[in-house]
């Protein structure tokens, strides 16, 4: 992957962190304002964390109407790699690019803490380079991170290996301990934990690297 676009909605706040994680992996990344409608020239798109449009109504509910989201859907349709982190995951579910929804944490509190994730599928652009069963320490930082979906959806995503990351110790009440999810095609991934915050032992963990390295390598493989 040579060039990654990081979408910025008003209220996004992890866009610079996503940029710096990409730069640490030697990838050129640039900010993409939410009014943009053309994503040509990008090899991958990241929807970063934050509070797009203030999370008013509910997280992602307004962001799905930002002009850039049609372009993101088209980009995904053409097989481009799309990664939604935290608020980005919420936006992807609201936009219908991933199934299910994220609701408030079971304790009704915001949670910023390290979690241990287990890689449960590597059929995704985020986990293709990681061994099944591998444990990764990556922080979460959200109020609405409890994944929910109906039984039918849950059975489908379980059987088709779409659940890519599960919490070892479920912090937020997520159904099936789901921390990260991919679409059927394997190119659109959302996760609540922040791999870009786990890029260096100086900051506590470098376990996010393997995930973002997979994402960055995915374009070549596709």
């Amino acid at each position, binding site marked *: 992957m040579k060039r990654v676009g990081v979408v910025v909605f008003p209220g996004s706040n*992890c866009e610079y962190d996503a940029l710096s*994680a990409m730069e640490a992996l030697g990838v050129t990344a640039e900010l993409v*304002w939410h009014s943009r409608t053309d994503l040509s020239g990008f090899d991958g798109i990241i929807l970063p964390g934050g509070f797009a449009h*203030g*999370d008013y109504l509910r997280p992602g509910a307004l962001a799905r109407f930002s002009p850039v989201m049609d372009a993101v859907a088209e980009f995904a349709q053409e097989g481009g790699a799309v990664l939604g982190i935290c608020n980005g995951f919420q936006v992807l579910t609201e936009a219908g690019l991933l199934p299910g929804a994220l609701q408030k944490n079971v304790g009704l*509190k915001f949670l*910023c803490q390290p979690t241990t994730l287990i890689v449960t599928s590597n059929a995704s652009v985020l986990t293709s380079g990681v061994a099944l069963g591998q444990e990764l320490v990556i922080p979460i*930082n959200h*109020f609405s991170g409890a994944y929910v979906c109906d039984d039918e959806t849950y059975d489908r995503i379980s059987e088709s290996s779409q659940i890519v990351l599960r919490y070892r110790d479920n912090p937020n009440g997520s159904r099936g301990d789901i921390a990260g999810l991919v679409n059927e095609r394997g190119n659109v991934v959302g996760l609540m934990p922040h791999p870009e915050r786990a890029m260096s032992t*100086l900051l506590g963990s470098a376990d996010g690297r393997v995930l973002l390295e997979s994402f960055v390598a995915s374009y070549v493989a596709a």
Partner: protein
Amino acid sequence: MVASPPQSLHRALGLSDEEFGDIKEVLGREPNHLELALFGVMWSEHCSYKSSSIHLRRLPTKGSHVLVGPGENAGVIDAGDGIAVAIRIESHNHPSAIEPYQGAATGVGGILRDIFTMGARPLAVMDPLFFGELSDARQRWLVEGVVSGISGYGNSVGVPTIGGELTFDDCYRANPLVNVLCVGALPKERLVLGIASGVGNLAVLLGSRTGRDGIGGVSVLASAGFSGEDGAASLDEAKRPSVQVGDPYEEKRLIEACLELLDAGLVVGIQDLGGAGLICGTSETAARGGMGMDVDVTAVPQREPGMVPYEIMTSESQERMVAIITPDNLEEVEALCAKWEIRASVVGRVVEPTLQPNGDRVGMLRVRNGFDGEVLAEVPAKALADEAPLYDRPRRYPSTLDELRDDDPSDEPIGSPNDDLLEMLVDPAWVYRQYDSQLFLNTVVGPGRDAALLRLAGPGLPHSSRGIAISTDSNPRWCALDPRVGTALTVIEGVANLACVGATAKAVVNCLNFGNPEHPEVMWQLSESIDGMAEACNRLGLPVIGGNVSLYNESGGADIDPTPVIGLLGVVDHLVAPPPGWNWNDDDTLVLVGARHAQGDREFPLGGSRWATRRGRRGGEITDVEPRTLKATIEFVASEVAAICAGATSDVTAVHDVSGGGLASALAEMTAVAGVGASVKELESHAELFSEFPGRFVMATSNVEAFTDRARAAGVPLFELGVATGNRLVIGSMIDLSVTEIAARRSGALEDALAAAT
């Protein structure tokens, strides 16, 4: 002009008869209603520092690295590598007492604006919080509300909260304290000040519309006490509308828009609107520039119809800034603001100073009904902003203090040290888990440790491998016994905390939370406290680059204990590896670094300690520490840790400052975090377990011989405590507890107390 007000109106606006006389003298005539109201807010205690100003002048403020000292929106130092760091601390005590969520939230919002006003991107927030005991249901409501407010606003606005303090004491039952500190960084050359210059330049109001919220926040709320004995609980429902309501999404866009305006070089000066709203922002910028300003009240976007000029000029509606721009940049400013969906309205013009009858040229602030319309108020900007009368209020040594000092808790029965220790342990994780502490990928040491440590990096900053460390400290128990020594020791405590993460202190900010300044005992405490801070700062060569004074923290005539909160900013020159933290390993040798005994009459003083206070013994003496040993100790610890941060291999495996709860608490906290117990030799007494005086550290080393040699060479006293081992913390014959029990009690203490049935 509007008709002159009745004689008693000035009192309702918080102005004394003498102040009313001063205003008439300044104007050379009777003020009208609006003018009087403008003076009322600008000459309030909160805005004018009229009771504290003459004392604050005694603080040292100079240093070769100080770029901006006190009096501006924030203090700024040169941190090296072309990066300047801005820091400020404020209180939002009274609003939080009445409406904890919005009070705390808008406290965060306000301090962020002070930082980005200087051109700095806010990089981190810390929140020292003080409440009454959690056995009281109202306190639990306050804690939940304040923490949710900080979390809700801070996380959403996108600035990490990296630490703070949490203190419970009955003296805050009716007057909780919510202080907030913010640091930001900027490329040195982008530094901007809130100055209105250039005749014909425009004052553009950015951000939210102006509503009726927060009217009189500074004068009604922050510059008077609560009258009921239970403070805000009963009476002061009527003051609730004086609390502002925050919108972090608006603030986030405002931050980004303002930083882009500054990057693009589109503004001449910029100023946030906080306490006292538009009148404060316009009169301060005009006064600094020596200019006049015409403000058109009808040009101010309003949230509701029918607002009168007084309301528009003094509303404390949040998320607003005033930018001074040249007229030819207006279109670009408007376009940039439109991108960020930020309202931008030209509300003022910079005008020539007016020639007075006596020949002086004075910058007048004129409030007008339309730019060329009727003049509703006309007052010298400087008189409003800078010329409030200053008071040397009467001071008196408290008559009860000698008796209190004589009541030393050294005669208190020993009791059960095991139980005492367990009951003192509180892990604040329940609080800080609710804060985003990691945004911007800078947080090397986050909340819950001695000091926070950040990489000095951020969007738009030059590359640097430096780190900055921040701590906030207070010890009201010490300061109640001796505000002078107590405040000096609090500064030292902060410097010691920075040493634990390898940082050398560079600058001090302070938030002085005191009672009613019209009580001579409170003024004595304030004056003594400032002297103590000045002494410690002079001794350590530290400049004070900013501060905030919160007075009238009283309810029903009872003042809080003097609570100076000291914020310290330090620098680590080369940060490539995390400092050791509290995680010792099996078989490490544990060493007490620094003077083992206190300097005064008592080798292990218990006066002002948590141990004694918990038993209702608030008396005793506190003593200063021996300066030479102290300096050597702090420098030794800082250099040992700094070497580790720079990437050197070291035998030092853990460092923790001995503070609240004494040596026993420090050891227990390390035990809980490391998950490894310790076997510590018999100490001299239970007082040695729980005594609190600064300048001592517990360190763990894997090579005690080498460590001892280095400490000796540095002239630092050591006392070998024992060894890290097993799954119990054993201290001689006095403490014997399992690591599991310590960890469980500590981590559950806060949640259990908050969950207590009413």
